[in-house]
């Protein structure tokens, strides 16, 4: 590395930026399905719809309703409606399709208003059309929805979102505590993780592994990308003594660059993974949920606990905490600060990418999924107490839980607004957060 | 008035004939660690008082507390600005100060500064992207143009004109006049210390708190800073300063206060404190 090419930090930024762009556009685009490159099916035609119950002018989305699309009796695809009730199935060509709703997957208390209309047998789709079909749902007459049941299902969804936020916030929070910078490009790392896993598991141009097998390679690749960013962008900037304000602005620009690059590569429409997409719900007590949600929650909790232990009991964990506490002091007592940054970036990005995969499993993979999540991650950090990693985890869980539960009373469209509202209220009344110390808000 | 100290016995918490600052039961703990615990302390008007103590004995924390840059757990302190300090702004504070006493407990740092107690910092805080002259002009207290409502008027220009000559005089004294149009960021470390002093003097405080005014200053400048310090009392500014080096303290201060683990363990005339066994212990005990 002593070559003249990389010795000048300014030049190194250029070289690595160029490399990064080439890797992204080149290798990504190459491996990607031809479809994503603007051709036929992915941005082509689809059948879509929204599962919702309209009651007293209030719209309540229905999640997890299974839809099966087939052509002449051959199944083309099946999906479940996501948290906002939306579902969509890509269809290969223009023509006539049948769309059937799996009545068994309707949650308790929701019914077709016309039980005869369980299958639409002649859905015409034109070239490139996004055909919307409608199943009319209403509150059930036989099984009435108990408050306890719907709330307990929301609890599971809330824990899932909380787990995803907590997992994704670790990297951001650690980085904030050691560098004082909010990395606004962090949301894009969530998206990146989800998309890498899509590339490895689902994309026709990729290796088509099972998603479970793709998770670890995804984390590994994301970690490498994180390390590369630290090495090629942030470290040279730190060496030039760029202030926190400058770094934050760089991160905003970088976030824009990454987000729209991913949009160019992936396309605008959300896509589900091929695995874990449809699962029979398991039932216990009052909860009825697909097992993937429980896996996500369980795995995330285990990883967060593991991460906490590492931070607490290992050498590098201690070093990270020391740098967070007082960088100059840590530096003068022999800790290699650059090394600490590198490790934080790698581990943080890997965990964030995993959060992205989980989010993709829970909902679907979309170009701005991370940016949308970023605001909730911030809310979680503030709630837990900015600068405390443990606080960020707890705050993340709390905010995910809160916003999902709130959908029981409040319209889903306010979900993010509620998370941000919590953030603002917290700043007004307890700015140090749930776990923070007053001294830190200075 | 520094002469009046001659008759004061040197023991912690002793009363002074004409105190400008009275501190009572000020305590601040960080977690379990008590950083400052001053039972009673008075600073004599128009004196040069040194605050000494080993590293981590709470000197800077005490400054932060007194000036409102940190909040106390308990305790209170008052200032007696008197007639000589020109720093009192019109307003309710002035009403209070006519009675000769202003309670500072719980006030914001900027209010405390306006009430005539101005501090400097251990790590110099020069405003790099303001010119040297602007740095000093900023400290002037009567500039109505600092209010948004009057910033577009004409009145401030006259005031600035008048302040400019005062500021240049002060810069002249501190040997910075030739650099008045430079950015403060272009000054050397020692010159920044001088600029910070000049700025503080421009604010016409009745009590000046200097946090290690000599740290990092090259020896040639030390002499000149010390000379300035000695002249301040005659101009109506009482000086309380933090310093490590005992030699420096001995040569210029009228009174010395020694902190150890946040408490005053000794105070008195320099030569008395220097030979106090507790002080010697505090210093030696910490050395390696």
């Amino acid at each position, binding site marked *: 590395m002593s070559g003249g090419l990389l010795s000048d930090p*300014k030049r190194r*930024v250029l070289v690595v930026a160029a490399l990064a*762009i080439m890797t992204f556009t080149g290798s990504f685009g190459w491996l990607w399905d031809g479809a994503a490159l*603007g051709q036929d099916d992915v*941005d082509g035609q689809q059948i879509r719809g929204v599962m919702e119950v309209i009651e007293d002018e209030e719209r309540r989305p229905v999640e997890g309703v299974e839809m099966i699309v087939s052509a002449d009796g051959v199944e083309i695809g099946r999906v479940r409606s996501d948290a906002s009730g939306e579902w969509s199935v890509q269809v290969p060509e223009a023509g006539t399709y049948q769309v059937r709703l799996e009545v068994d997957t309707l949650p308790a208390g929701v019914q077709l208003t016309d039980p005869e209309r369980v299958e639409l047998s002649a859905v015409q789709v034109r070239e490139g059309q996004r055909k919307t079909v409608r199943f009319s749902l209403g509150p059930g007459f036989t099984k009435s929805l108990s408050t306890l049941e719907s709330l307990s299902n929301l609890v599971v969804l809330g824990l899932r979102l909380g787990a995803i936020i907590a997992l994704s916030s670790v990297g951001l929070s650690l980085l904030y505590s050691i560098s*004082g910078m*909010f990395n606004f490009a962090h949301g894009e790392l969530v998206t990146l993780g989800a998309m890498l896993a899509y590339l490895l598991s689902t994309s026709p141009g990729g290796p088509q592994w099972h998603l479970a097998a793709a998770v670890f390679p995804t984390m590994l690749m994301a970690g490498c990308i994180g390390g590369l960013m630290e090495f090629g*962008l942030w470290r040279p*900037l730190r060496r*030039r003594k*760029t*202030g926190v*304000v*400058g770094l*934050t*602005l*760089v991160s*905003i*620009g*970088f976030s*824009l*660059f*990454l*987000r*729209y690059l991913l*949009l*160019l590569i992936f396309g*605008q429409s959300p896509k589900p993974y091929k695995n874990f997409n449809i699962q029979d719900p398991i039932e216990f007590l009052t909860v009825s949920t697909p097992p993937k949600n429980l896996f996500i929650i369980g795995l995330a909790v285990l990883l967060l606990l593991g991460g906490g232990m590492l931070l607490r009991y290992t050498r590098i964990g201690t070093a990270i905490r020391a740098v967070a506490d007082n960088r100059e002091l840590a530096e003068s007592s022999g800790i290699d600060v650059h090394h600490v940054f590198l490790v934080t970036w790698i581990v943080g990005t890997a965990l964030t990418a995993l959060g992205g995969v989980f989010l993709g499993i829970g909902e679907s993979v979309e170009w701005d999924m991370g940016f949308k999540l970023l605001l909730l991650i911030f809310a979680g950090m*503030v709630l837990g107490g*900015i600068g405390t990693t443990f606080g960020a985890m707890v705050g993340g869980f709390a905010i995910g839980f809160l916003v999902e539960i709130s959908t029981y009373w409040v319209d889903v469209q306010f979900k*993010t*607004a509620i998370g*941000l509202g919590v953030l*603002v209220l917290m*700043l*007004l009344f307890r700015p140090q957060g749930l776990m923070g110390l007053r001294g830190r*808000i*200075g | 008035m520094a002469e009046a100290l001659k008759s004061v016995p040197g023991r912690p918490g002793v009363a002074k004939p004409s105190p400008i600052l009275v501190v009572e039961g000020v305590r601040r703990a960080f977690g379990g660690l008590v950083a400052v615990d001053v039972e009673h302390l008075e600073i004599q008007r128009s004196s040069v008082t040194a605050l000494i103590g080993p590293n981590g004995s709470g000197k800077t924390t005490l400054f932060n507390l007194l000036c409102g*840059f940190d909040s106390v757990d308990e305790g209170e302190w008052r200032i007696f600005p008197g007639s000589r300090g020109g720093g009192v702004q019109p307003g309710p504070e002035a009403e209070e100060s006519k009675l000769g006493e202003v309670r500072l407990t719980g006030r914001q740092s*900027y209010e405390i*500064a306006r009430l005539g107690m*101005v*501090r400097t*910092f251990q790590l110099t*805080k*020069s*405003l*790099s*992207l*303001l010119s040297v002259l602007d740095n000093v002009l*900023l400290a002037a207290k009567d*500039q109505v143009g*600092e209010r*948004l409502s009057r*910033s*577009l008027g004409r009145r*401030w220009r006259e005031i600035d004109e008048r302040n400019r000559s005062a500021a240049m005089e002060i810069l002249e004294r501190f040997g910075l006049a030739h650099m008045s149009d430079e950015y403060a*960021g272009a000054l050397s470390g020692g010159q920044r210390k001088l600029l910070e002093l000049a700025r*503080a003097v421009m*604010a016409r405080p009745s009590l000046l708190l200097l946090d290690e005014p000599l740290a990092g200053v090259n020896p040639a400048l030390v002499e000149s800073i010390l000379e300035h310090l000695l002249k301040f009392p005659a101009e109506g500014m009482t000086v309380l300063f933090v310093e490590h080096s005992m030699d420096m303290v001995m040569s210029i201060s009228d009174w010395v206060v020694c902190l150890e683990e946040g408490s005053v363990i000794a105070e008195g005339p320099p030569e008395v404190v220097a030979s106090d066994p507790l002080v010697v212990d505090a210093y030696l005990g910490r050395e390696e």
Partner: protein
Amino acid sequence: MDWLEITVDSLRGSVSLVAAAYALSSIGLNLQFGSAGLLNFGHVASMLVGAYGMAIVVDLGGPLLLGVLVGVAAAALLGWLWGITTLRLRADYLTVVTLSFGEILRFLIRSNWANPFTKSVYGIQRFADEFYDWNPIPDGDYGFEIASNPIRFSERQLWVMSVCWGLAILATLLFRSLMRSPWGRTVKAVREDEDAARSLGKNVYLYKQQALIIGSVIGALGGILLGIETQNVYPDFYIPLVTINAFAIVILGGAGSVWGPMAASIIYWFLFEWLDGVINSAMTEGYFGLLFEPADSGRIRTVLLGIGLVCLMVFRPQGLFGRRREVILGGT
């Protein structure tokens, strides 16, 4: 590819209302960010409340001037709200809160709940007819041609452009007088070092609060004129990207510089239109092959904006006109 046509079109874009409105709006951001050092990532919210304040009042039957006043008052209120939620806390909270405020507002006006006032996603149209009734410019087509490529504006466009550029000049002059006054000196001191300013008796909180409010009001004027020109406000225009555009302009012109935002807005929108023209004609001429589809041209431009902002911060943080040693963004 017709380079001349693209260039002339871009020249037209660089003096258009959009450039003028962004120049005006960026002056507000420059006061907050360049002068006072406040990293406001929700500047778009000022433009939003300004434009919506006006549109809602007119839509409910009020006169346009009242609408403008309401918009401006709402923007001042917004600046004040930003202040009370964050200014007593550490500076970096401001970025998160302002970004969040912008998104909360956008979600709110988008929601069904606000429909009676904001018409949700459809937005409000045709609220500025009154403004065009005041137009003193006779009907016609004004402009000239460069090698048979026209730069022309209708009397309507010319009217709203003149008002907006005029306001931008006024705002710049206001900015200059403010920053040359002792008030400006104190604001700069607050930016440089809050503790030093406090130790000299300056109420740091008050100055930041004032900068936020004035900046928000100027930003709102930009939003109002943008709304008047299109006669259309809708929630999904006011995304965080608008703030980033304004930041790019402020930094390009040199944070804290007096004429920077105006000059940079002209340059920025020239580049914007030029890139747009080049990408689009490259697309129609098939240079990208199957790689991109027509909808991608805006996305490619945004990717380039992101790279540009990073490069600007890395290689020329002082902007086009600033001097290196005066850079506000550098250093620690």
